[in-house]
């Protein structure tokens, strides 16, 4: 029962990152309950729009799983196509986040404006950064898949990337629940 080294390393990294995000989420919740931040969140956030973009990220977990399945069936070209779709869905999610950020910044909600901005931008910003890093890694994977120089990604690479990508997705589900769904049910 030996876990392959790359996968084990990624699993350990993900465990550490999970704790990192827990601390940022904890800070968000702490300041939301300790101050009037909930009101700002209520006035400024749009759970429906962000929810729609969130579906893209959740969908991308499905597409990367399909990519892994294709790779296991030996169809590397089809796997690469699924990864391309994953990247596109990730890009749509990031675009959605960018639109939300510019809307918030436009209406005066910034890091410096108050505790809501401080915690919201830090939390979603760090998640966005993780999405971006994942997209870069997946793009490199795509590039290598189509390169003709014999540098095709090793088997198992996609599994390691999937682990990271699913993690980024799960973190978003938690963040979405904590920030947006709380507003819906509040």
């Amino acid at each position, binding site marked *: 029962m*030996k*876990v392959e*080294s790359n996968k*084990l*390393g990624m699993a*350990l*990294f993900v*465990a*550490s*990152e999970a*704790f*990192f995000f*827990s*601390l*940022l989420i904890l*800070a968000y919740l*702490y*300041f939301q309950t*300790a*101050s009037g931040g909930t009101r700002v969140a209520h006035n400024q956030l749009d759970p429906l729009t962000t929810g729609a973009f969130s579906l893209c990220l959740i969908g991308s977990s499905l597409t990367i799983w399909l990519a892994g399945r294709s790779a296991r069936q030996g169809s590397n070209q089809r796997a690469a196509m699924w990864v391309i779709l994953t990247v596109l869905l990730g890009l749509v999610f990031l675009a959605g986040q960018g639109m939300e950020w510019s809307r918030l910044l436009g209406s005066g909600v*910034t*890091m*410096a404006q*108050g*505790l809501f*901005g*401080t*915690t919201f*931008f*830090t939390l979603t910003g*760090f998640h966005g950064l993780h999405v971006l890093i994942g997209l870069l890694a997946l793009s490199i994977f795509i590039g290598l898949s189509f390169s003709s120089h014999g540098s095709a990604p090793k088997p198992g690479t996609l599994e390691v990337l999937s682990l990271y990508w699913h993690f980024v997705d799960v973190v978003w589900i938690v963040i979405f629940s904590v920030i947006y769904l709380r507003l819906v049910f509040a």
Partner: protein
Amino acid sequence: MSDTALVPESHEALPRISAAGGLLSWIASVDHKQIGIMYLLISLFFFGVGGIESLLMRIQLAQPGEHFLSPQEYNQIFTMHGTTMIFLVVMPLLIGFSTYLVPLMIGARDMAFPRLNALSFWLLVFGGFLLYYSFIDGGAPATGWFSYAPLSESAYSTSKGVSYWALGLLAVGTGTLATAINLMVTIINLRVKGMTLRRVPLFVWMVLVNGFIILFAMPPLNASLIMLLGDRLLGAHFFTAAGGGSPILWQHYFWAFGHPEVYIMILPAWGMISEIIPVFSRKPIFGYEFVAGSSVAIAVLSFAVYAHHMFVVGLGHPFDAAFSLASLTIAVPTGVKIFNWIATMWGGKIRFKTPMLFATAFLVLFTIGGISGVTFAMVPIDWQTTDTYYVVAHFHYVLFGGTLFGVFAGLYYWFPKITGKLLSERLGKWHFWLTLIGFNLTFFVQHLLGLAGMARRVYTYPNFPGWGDMNLISTVGAFVLAIATLVLVWNLIVSLRRGQSAGDNPWEAWTLEWATSSPPPVHNFDSVPPVRGRRPLWDLAHPDQADEMSPARAGGTNA
């Protein structure tokens, strides 16, 4: 089944011998031995820098009311001393030894991720220089190594020092996290056939447990650092009370890292002691399982004790009581190990070579530091002694008397393996006695000064009876320590040039790193002796008296 175990091949290319030689072969290296040596060298460099900083402080404090340093300079220097010694000396020293030794001890060719290993090291170098660049760009941080908010906020720390501090530590911390993952995967996946987790050397056990602590101690540090940077650079309000933030949150997050950090800085030293004491007592370690198991207990508990750094905050009695209890509890698994080491020495044929001298002194000094540590778990005593020199005395007994004595023991022990040359015993004994005397002169009186109420982190002190004398003793001790360190450096240089040739196994030790040549070849081993117990080289030399270890006890014979 063949007796010679096959070394698991590393899945990344080993450095080519043709590239060996010249500076580039070091800078571009992904070899765990070269990277380990570079860790040790950079730590030694920063040990000199941090040591000079401590001498500057001791000159300022030699007598009451001196003006050798201004208060501002003093604050910068004590902050840099603490930060340097923790992040750029003790941690890299331990990581350096881990990086060098773990693959050799488990019979592997290299780390699981050699390139990541190099990245970790260069992140440390980058972070260290980033931190020190603050001196050039407007002044070093002056907030202590713990950078309490709101003092560390831009309203009170107007220079860029704290931002450099935070960025530097982010780089260093990220590198440390990567190394921890690398070491853990190496230990879990690359052990040679027969090297079960119940047979690995205890040093490897400690590194593995340490990996888990690092994995969950770095996130709170990174989180607090990015929050502080947000406050300072983007006007966020995490820790500014005026903006509704909470300065106490900094303390929670920082100490959620800071206390596990204390164990990160001692576990590998315990591992070294657990290797050295058996070899120089000519006995196997007493209670292997207890040394390993108590470390796991410590790793778990280390996350439940951090708020004993915060008893003066006023978090409430239930809170204080819970953390007091946990902090008292963690002394138990720590004490277990002390008895393991004493019992290993008991009745042994002890050879007091320099490594063993340092290891023996470690037992005494670390116990003193441990006992003064337990006193802080008692809330009223903590209220009385917090922020005094009693605290300074305590953590120097643990970090210097403990970790550094362990590291010195390890340096004398493994230097022959690393270089092929023995360190001079004569200079080694000079180094040992000067260090022992200098250390106790410097720090023992600080217990008394602290109990008398002398505040730490202040550039001078009132002329109370005895305070000037005791501080003078401390300053003299610091200079004795400086001389001791010069003896060490001299020993390193002289022994490297004309030291006695070491041979493969100068100490008649039993673990796998001694089965290869000194220094080991790039690929570490040509062949590895069969591993059927915890002391493969003993079993090889004394097949009739091999350590009794049935497959069932050793947890199976699987690779």
